[in-house]
């Protein structure tokens, strides 16, 4: 049973048994209430405004911040939880974390056939021995009404995230750089959605060097589209292209 709902400024598409829908909505509502910088009363807004010291914030906010800082170190700063003005901005990770938490809740409740797509970041249930592989389309950055290709998610590969400037302009902080990003769209396929999302953001932010570093260090598959429409793909991504 498919449903959609708005959260975090985008739309979440959920394919899961109807009885499980409130469970997933609750996960997203909780995350939004805690992390949205668009809500003055959110916990993170109070931290950003200086009303609440980070050290006194709730453990979940601190855990998420610590996780974001860890990713900053892993990506040599390509991914960062701080805006240029110093304000903590966890938007780069909270949506993926919400998807991850929602998926974990569905699995814990005993559901084994589902998919969650939060504004283009997708996590699917572990297909298991009898489940059919999930087919995911990658968007065409030049045409919102088209897709580029279909890829298969199978085995441990359960997550795909895409970052880019196609939908909302250059919204990714790139260390004050004014030059256009090398890639207009980057998709990362990984075993977990936070890794996929963070690395896709890092590659868009930092370009080719970060792309190579990511491919060397992480067990992920990557697909990129540059300004001229030229495409790059890792061997695993090519293998995942739908036949």
């Amino acid at each position, binding site marked *: 049973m*498919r449903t*959609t709902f*708005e959260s975090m*400024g*985008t*739309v979440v*598409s959920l*394919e899961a048994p109807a009885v499980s829908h409130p469970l997933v909505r609750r996960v997203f509502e909780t995350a939004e209430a805690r992390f949205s910088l668009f809500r003055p009363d959110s916990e993170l807004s109070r931290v950003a405004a200086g009303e609440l010291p980070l050290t006194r914030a709730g453990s979940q906010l601190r855990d998420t911040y610590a996780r974001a800082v860890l990713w900053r170190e*892993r990506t040599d700063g390509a991914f960062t939880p701080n805006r240029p003005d110093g304000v903590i901005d966890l938007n780069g990770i909270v*949506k993926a974390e919400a998807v991850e938490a929602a998926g974990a809740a569905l699995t814990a409740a005993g559901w084994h056939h589902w*998919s969650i*797509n939060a*504004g*283009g*970041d*997708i996590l699917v249930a572990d297909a298991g021995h009898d489940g059919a592989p*999930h*087919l*995911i*389309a*990658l*968007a065409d950055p030049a045409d*919102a*009404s*088209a897709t*580029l*290709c*279909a890829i298969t998610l199978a085995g441990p590969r359960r997550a*795909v*995230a*895409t*970052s*880019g*400037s*196609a*939908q*909302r302009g250059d919204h990714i902080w790139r260390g004050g750089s004014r030059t256009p990003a090398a890639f207009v*769209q980057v*998709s990362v396929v990984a075993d977990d959605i936070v890794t996929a999302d963070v690395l896709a953001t890092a590659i868009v932010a930092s370009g080719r060097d970060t*792309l*190579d570093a990511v*491919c*060397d*260090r*992480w*067990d992920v598959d*990557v697909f*990129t589209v540059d300004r001229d*429409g*030229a*495409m*790059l*793909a*890792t*061997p*695993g*991504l090519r293998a995942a*292209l*739908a*036949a």
Partner: protein
Amino acid sequence: MRTRTLLGSILASIGVLVVGWQAGTTVLGTTTVATPSSSTGGATTGGSTTGGSTTSGGSSTSSPAATPTSAASQTATYTGTEVNTRFGSVQVQVTVTDGTISDVTALKLTDHDGKSVQISNRAAPVLREEVLAAQSASVSNVSGATYTTQAYLTSVQSALDQAGL
């Protein structure tokens, strides 16, 4: 023997690279400590060859246990800790004779999904035709840059959702 030595030093270099890279970039928590398992001479001098690339310590605390390989020259065998890489786990043993590496044995090489044979995971150019040829009528979701709630209305994802597929 010469070929073996050459091969050994190449393997050692790879081992050191893997170990250094692992220690420097990821957080798997495995530190590599060279453990001398045998020593016929007094002080073991070759430790820096294997352990030097990463953390120190530990090598002096382990007690020599294994059999000496040669009584004439100073020979020591060092067994590296098992290191997890993204291709699986790797463990290397290095034999040092008179201060130089005389042999390197891979005690454990990865066979995780056969990925050890995959040398590069880097992204390479792919033809647009090849990409566009990969289509399926049964896609369930679209991955793209995050859309606003307004942009969603005209997206392919919205069409899929309305179809209830």
